[in-house]
């Protein structure tokens, strides 16, 4: 009888839906297999069998992945972050200027008084710059109620301008050995994994995560439930800014140089990874695992194109199509209720 129905699932119901991450994972497998087949057909060799290529692929995307972990959280609240690419440039410049060595002569150094500092200094300075930029984004969005698109667009332009102004457009190089080691070898992948695990746990098991989803699902209800909506938003944008800064430190350390033009379009790649990984632009849905898979999918596609010797311009056009395709799928998922 109906009144005792707690947790009922009677009479041969249709099978339960799988978590969305499983579907995305199958997409990844499908794409990988497709490139494998195309590889044998057109290049006469294996795509997946080449370990070196896969390593390069994962290295390329994991820096973007670090950014995307933050961007995913923002998109889950129903927001967007366009500033992460420019932040990479701004933070790289600042961080690198505190990481220079005197080994090649002081005339090559931006701040001759600040050379050979312990590695922790440029790291902290960089992260603080990122956190501040995130705080400004979050504060504007939470308290002045301007749309995230506009706030982060402003930050995108301003941060890029800041990066150029910092040295009047000149690159900064010659980091200390210890700073250069941050991005060495497989470190970017390891850093990504640590970041992803931390935020996977945060999103799933802490109230920070629960509130983030609540914000995206229904902001009014979140407020009425006692969530401090403004403070939560600021927290999320600060975290995203800090993660962009972390990515910046990894990139400029690996390249041993910082230039104002760095990180161009990173914001779009980070958004693409999140969306491909099942994060809904409408807010309330998405996961860090999904984004991690989305990251690998993007990596496989890009490295697959290169492997098939597809023209670089062609690749960009395809990438555009893939991003739009992912959003179409997301929209379709939203509409399809039955």
């Amino acid at each position, binding site marked *: 009888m109906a009144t005792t129905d707690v947790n009922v699932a009677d009479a041969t*119901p249709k099978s339960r839906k799988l978590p969305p991450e499983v579907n995305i994972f199958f997409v990844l497998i499908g794409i990988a297999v497709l490139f494998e087949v195309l590889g044998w057909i057109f290049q006469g060799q294996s795509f997946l069998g080449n370990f070196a290529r896969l390593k390069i692929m994962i290295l390329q995307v994991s820096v973007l992945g670090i950014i995307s972990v933050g961007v995913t959280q923002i998109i889950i609240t129903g927001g967007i972050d366009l500033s992460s690419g420019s932040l990479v440039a701004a933070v790289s410049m600042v961080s690198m200027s505190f990481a220079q060595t005197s080994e090649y002569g002081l005339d090559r150094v931006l701040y001759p008084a600040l050379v050979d500092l312990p590695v922790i200094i440029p790291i902290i300075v960089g992260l603080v710059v990122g956190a501040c930029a995130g705080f400004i984004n979050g504060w504007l969005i939470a308290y002045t109620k301007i749309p995230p698109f506009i706030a982060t667009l402003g930050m995108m332009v301003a941060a890029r301008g800041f990066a150029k102004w910092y040295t009047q457009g000149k690159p900064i190089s010659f980091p200390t050995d210890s700073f250069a080691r941050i991005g060495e070898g497989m470190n970017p992948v390891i850093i990504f994994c640590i970041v992803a695990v931390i935020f996977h746990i945060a999103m799933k098991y802490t*109230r920070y995560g629960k509130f983030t989803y609540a914000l995206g699902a229904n902001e009014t209800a979140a407020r009425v439930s006692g969530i401090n909506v403004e403070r939560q938003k600021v927290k999320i944008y600060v975290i995203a800014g800090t993660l962009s800064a972390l990515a910046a430190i990894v990139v400029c350390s690996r390249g041993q140089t910082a230039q104002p033009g760095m990180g161009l379009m990173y914001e779009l790649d980070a958004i693409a990874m999140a969306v491909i990984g099942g994060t809904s632009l409408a807010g309330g849905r998405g996961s860090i695992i999904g984004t991690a898979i989305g990251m690998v999918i993007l990596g496989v596609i890009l490295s697959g194109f290169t492997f098939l010797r597809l023209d670089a311009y062609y690749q960009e056009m395809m990438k555009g199509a893939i991003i739009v395709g992912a959003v179409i799928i997301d929209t379709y998922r939203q509409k399809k209720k039955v």
Partner: protein
Amino acid sequence: MLDGSAGSARDRFTGEFILEVDNVRKEFPGVVALDDVQLRIRPGSVHALMGENGAGKSTLMKIIAGIYSPDSGEVRFAGEKLSIKTPIDALNSGIAMIHQELNLMNTMNVAENVWIRREPKNAMGLIDHAQMRRQTQELFDELGISLDPTALVDDLTVAQKQMIEISKAVSYNSDVLIMDEPTSAITEKEVAQLFRIIRDLRAKGVGIVYITHKMDELFEIADELTVFRDGQYVGTVPSSDIDRDGVIKMMVGREITDMFPKVDCEIGEVALEVKGLSRGKEFQDVSFELRRGEILGLAGLVGSGRSEVAEAIFGVKPATSGEIIIDGTPATITEPAQAMSHGLAFLTEDRKESGCFLILDCLSNIQMALITREMTNKFGFVEQSRVNELVNDYVEKLRIKTPSLGEIVENLSGGNQQKLLIARWLLTNPKVLILDEPTRGIDVGAKSEIHRLITALAGQGVAILMISSEMPEVLGMSDRIMVMREGRVGGFLDRADADQVSVMQLAAN
């Protein structure tokens, strides 16, 4: 009438049933929502569809209106098999529906909402706003609704929004009109108005499907009734052949006796005192005391400012002047979070707008308010196993019908969503509990269960402020009744002196 496109089928049609549903089955992952049900609607009659929360009423209506497609079975309209794929198909064939939840565009005005997709155009092919306003005014005049066609929907109360939904559905001039709990958020005055409209439509030959959990309405307006239980068809009877207990027995398979199990509780200290609370034109100079163990009913007409006062106390929309005193100390409350830290809880009226996280799962929905204040360790981790124990307890007590706690709340029936929100607030262990239409959309059995729970809370010393548009609920549950009239306190009534007439006298001017 106003829109000539539909409304022809019933003139040509001579058969016995305008709408016939046969052997319809619908499954969702984890639930069989409808199992081989039938329904027959005569033209020019009001057919009530009854059943407990989650019985499948809304699901069948959504199938008829083209929102879901059935797994099997047949729907015939005016004798012909219907193949409706979208809600627009349904409207074009002459089936209109008022949904259980509001579906208005908050940022648009009333007229735009009514005529959406059917806007009158001028010679240039552009929308003729003046004409649209006139049409809306005509429609409202005809239906006896007083609402400004140019008002922004966002500024209206839930009840006013409901009246827009009703007039919009009527304006389609359809042959079959489905009303899914149209009265769950309106007061007696609007109900009377709605019934006038329904009788008019019935006289014009429209077949009306009417879903409600309010028994009195059933016998006032329905000609026939069909009962579903757990997705199955139980039976159809003329409403003159059955009484209230008979219907309940058909619905739940047992008899439910005491409706409002109010027991007198010991009334203690003043827990909440409000002095001279005002906010703009919405309400002025509202003062009252609420004691521990007391249930203060808050009655009044739509627009009298009841919900607004509650929102002000809880900090959703803070008052502009006045004092809120909790346990004898003045409190500043400008945010719900502050109100909660003073031990307040507030079940809002509009579950879709300010209640549910529709796309999140049941567990998240129930625990959200609780974890803002407790049940998390110092690293911010939710103590999930402790929370789950509490949650499961309430799911059982309130008989929330869901395949699992992981189910998305959007997939729950309206009444079960409401129960879930009640659970959310009861979990927070409040000292002062503010309930705005607590049993909105809840079936008879569950309703008396919730009343029992509320009374039990009062017995434990919780102070309860209960807004309700349902007169029997207010009269049955309250120790005292505060009646509001046009944004002011109209007066107070003690339980002993309160009856329908005395409340209405204070509510109307």
